[in-house]
């Protein structure tokens, strides 16, 4: 067990280091920070100043949409690239349990997103300078945002395991994540309301990232929301392991 954790740690370090060996990491972080700022402060979109409130609701409100395009860019390489480079064969013939490789790579991507998220700290400083926000809520919202990024990444990991083509992995992940987002998006639920039975609507909105994230970003940490993201991540990672194993030959 100890050995397996040590190997997972090695995979994690290699993967996380891998992001910073290419320009991908820097481009990602710069774009993420830039868009965060633009969306939050622009008058027509976030209206941070116009609202006159010392909180980060507008900042976090745009995270689901940012993640929709940025997280797949991080997750697309997870397995597709290994397969393309032929290093999958190398990795799978090293004495690493499959789960350790899957978890190690996922954790690296997740921590990378965490780093990008932490770098938005000037936002927190700004609101604290301008007013007197509830920092507990802000912390909860950061946690929720990171969990949501984990959900997106886990989906991306699964899609990446299905193909050797990173572009397909990217597009597939965007579509899958869009499904999870739209499940709880107002206009979509309205359309469903007109014909679908209530239980079906409840089931669909239950899978929505929006609803889950919305309550966490208000500072309400519900065990069910945490369980939702944890389950989603575990199920997707299990699926990743199954697909990596099944598609080795092809």
């Amino acid at each position, binding site marked *: 067990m100890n050995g397996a954790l040590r190997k997972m740690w090695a995979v994690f370090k290699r993967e996380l280091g891998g992001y910073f060996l290419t320009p991908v990491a820097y481009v990602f972080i710069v774009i993420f920070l830039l868009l965060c700022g633009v969306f939050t402060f622009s008058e027509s979109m976030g209206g941070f100043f116009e609202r006159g409130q010392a909180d980060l609701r507008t900042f976090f409100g745009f995270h689901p949409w940012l993640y929709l395009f940025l997280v797949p860019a991080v997750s697309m390489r997870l397995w597709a690239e290994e397969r393309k480079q*032929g290093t999958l064969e190398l990795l*799978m*013939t090293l*004495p690493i349990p499959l789960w350790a490789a899957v978890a190690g790579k996922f954790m690296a991507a997740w921590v990378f997103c965490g780093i990008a998220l932490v770098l938005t700290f000037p936002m927190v400083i700004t609101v604290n300078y301008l007013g007197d926000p509830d920092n507990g809520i802000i912390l909860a919202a950061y946690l929720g945002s990171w969990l949501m990024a984990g959900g997106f990444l886990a989906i991306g990991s699964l899609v990446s395991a299905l193909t050797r083509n990173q572009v397909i992995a990217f597009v597939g992940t965007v579509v899958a994540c869009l499904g999870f987002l739209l499940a709880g998006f107002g206009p979509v639920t309205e359309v469903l309301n007109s014909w679908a039975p209530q239980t079906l609507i409840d089931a669909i909105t239950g899978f929505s990232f929006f609803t889950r994230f919305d309550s966490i970003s208000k500072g309400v940490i519900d065990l069910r929301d945490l369980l939702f993201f944890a389950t989603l991540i575990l199920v997707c990672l299990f699926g990743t392991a199954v697909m990596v194993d099944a598609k080795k030959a092809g």
Partner: protein
Amino acid sequence: MIEINGLVKRFGALTAVNGVSFSVKRGEVLGFLGPNGAGKSTTMKMLTGYLLPTAGRAVVCGHDVEQEPIAVKEKIGYLPEGAPAYPDMTPWEFLNFIAQVRGVERKRRRSRIEEVASMVHLEGVMRQTIETLSKGYKRRVGLAQAILHDPEVLVMDEPTDGLDPNQKFEVRALIQRMSPTKAIVLSTHILEEVEAVCTRAIIIDRGRVVADGTPSELCARSRLHHAVRMTFKIGSVDVGLVRADLQRLGGVDSVEVNPNDRGRVSMIVYPKDRASIASEVGAQARARGWPVEELQVELGRLDEVFRTITAPGSLDAQEVRS
């Protein structure tokens, strides 16, 4: 150390490996030969635990590959086909990663990496990203990765592919130096390599083992084995007469004449049943006073054996198998 029994791999309707069995002991270097697509790489992938066999068993150092894959992978050093490595990393970073996964102790890591790097002559490029390296260096990074933990079993898929003749020589020398303490399996389609480093060779064709023996045993199956090659100056003998004389000898099966072999007349005298006929032919030459320039006994050529057994539709395949 390696026991493979009735290994079968099917991909859908295609049977890539069809009942391969062999074993390799410590100190042996097994050469895996066969045309492209014969099932060499697939067999190696099953041996190293990358692919699961459809049927059959592979046991490495007492561990079943299917039951205890991690234990097997710990014992094996593996160079996959094409020597894959992470292109964005430097050899140093890459080998350090492998050392961590392979459980090389932290304080021994640096010295071990340096030791292996000097064994395969990577010292000069350790801080350069792998994608910028030449094919030969990339191959050596792959080799370094495979031998880093000093494995008991070493499996290499085309270890010298893409190397220049000097590098090939060095890699072969390295394999020979390591061979007494390890069981080594390597695939190749360079036949001279088999004769240079392998203690045993297996020829595999369409998923089946069609020949298994030491390189010299395989050579003995050649039609050329014990054949006698004679050369004469052009015009110095009556070729027809010599040929007729030779064909009258009891042990001779047939005589092949090449009237202009690089400025010489050459004759290859094939024996019946690959028996030795050198003394018989030599005595005849002396008795008749032929102006023989060179007389040479052939040991047989591996490439000829290889072609005979693996050529499409070859009947010999069945015969050699028995």
